[in-house]
């Protein structure tokens, strides 16, 4: 039952989210992700590599999704076609993909601080900003 609860938080997560292994197999995805890229859950069971590096439009997303395994977290904004990273899906092939132009990419670590997975969460562009005090 515990697993079901945590699974539900990810499954019902309102934004597209994928959890992937160091071999770039998608291990888990929110329902919102599967809807946007028009994938069925069965595809995830096949343990196929869904990343399509060559067709990806946003190179900063490609870089960030690799750098998670070096421990880097990144928040990216103004992405042009983020879902093109997945099996070469174009924006036209993805439902409602246009509203997601930001992404948070972060590593998942175990108790020994080893990075076991990477996560990408796609978010609507919100012009997020951090207004710092001017030192002058």
């Amino acid at each position, binding site marked *: *039952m*515990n*697993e*079901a*609860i*945590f*699974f*539900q*938080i*990810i499954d*019902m*997560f*309102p*934004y597209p989210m994928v*959890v992937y292994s160091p071999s770039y197999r998608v*291990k*888990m995805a929110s329902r919102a992700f599967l809807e946007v890229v028009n994938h069925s859950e069965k595809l995830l069971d096949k343990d196929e590599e869904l990343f399509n590096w060559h067709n990806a439009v946003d190179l900063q997303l490609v870089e960030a999704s690799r750098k998670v395994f070096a421990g880097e*977290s990144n*928040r990216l904004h*103004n992405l*042009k076609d983020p879902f093109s990273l997945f099996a070469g899906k174009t*924006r036209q092939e993805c439902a409602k993909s*246009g*509203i997601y*132009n930001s992404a*948070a990419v*972060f*590593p*998942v*670590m*175990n108790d020994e601080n080893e990075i*076991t*997975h990477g*996560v990408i*969460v796609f*978010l*609507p*562009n*919100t*012009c*997020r*900003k*951090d*207004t*710092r*005090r*001017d030192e*002058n």
Partner: protein
Amino acid sequence: MNDEKNSIIESFRTMAGKDELLFRVIECFPYPIQVYDTDGTSVLVNKAMLEEYHAVSADMIVGKYNVFKDPDVISTGQIDVLRRAFRGETVFFSDVRVPLEVISRRYGISDFDVEAVYQDITVFPIFDDRDQVMYVAALLINRRIYRGKNEIEKAKEYLENHWLDKFDLSETARVACLSKAHFSKLFKKHTGMTPLDYYTNYKIGKIKEMLADTNLSITQVFAACNMDYSGNAARSFKNKVGVTASEYRKKYF
């Protein structure tokens, strides 16, 4: 039911195997997540939530905080909207000002290094296997953060809160507690632009955001930003961005 829920809280400390990954994803999530029981009591907070509130321990929130009893939540008049999430809907609150003073008092935090924070909050239900709402999760994403207490930060916050209104230099200077002339000079010194340019740039940023929604026509986007596309606004957009709104949409969306 209560035993089952207690075991879920406990599971945060004891989880292993496949559950571990699910737990870790939530724990490592870079944005605060809080999960509530069906009566609104907090049952779970992730690491980002604790960091946001400066290392308040989970014990101070879990089992104690109830979102329906929070006077600041009640005072927003949005309780009915929030209740919809507890009835099974996903609800979204945009650009909510976080009551830092209240949080600071509640948890005895003295070292908040921010002046104001505005968050987008998405609240979504978690169902059990009979499709009944078992928990409700809230995802909090910082949209705007203001650090420092100086006059310029207050003015920026004011301009960004009133971007739909007509630009008002007198009122902005009043918020910053400065004369118009002194405020304009100081604002330019600190930001490199005039208050009007800052306001215009912010507004154009909003138009760019809304252009991503291709269900809206360009005219509707401008109208939603209180601007008339047939007037100076279109010219102003092109001057600032370098392309027309239509070209911008084609290029990026």
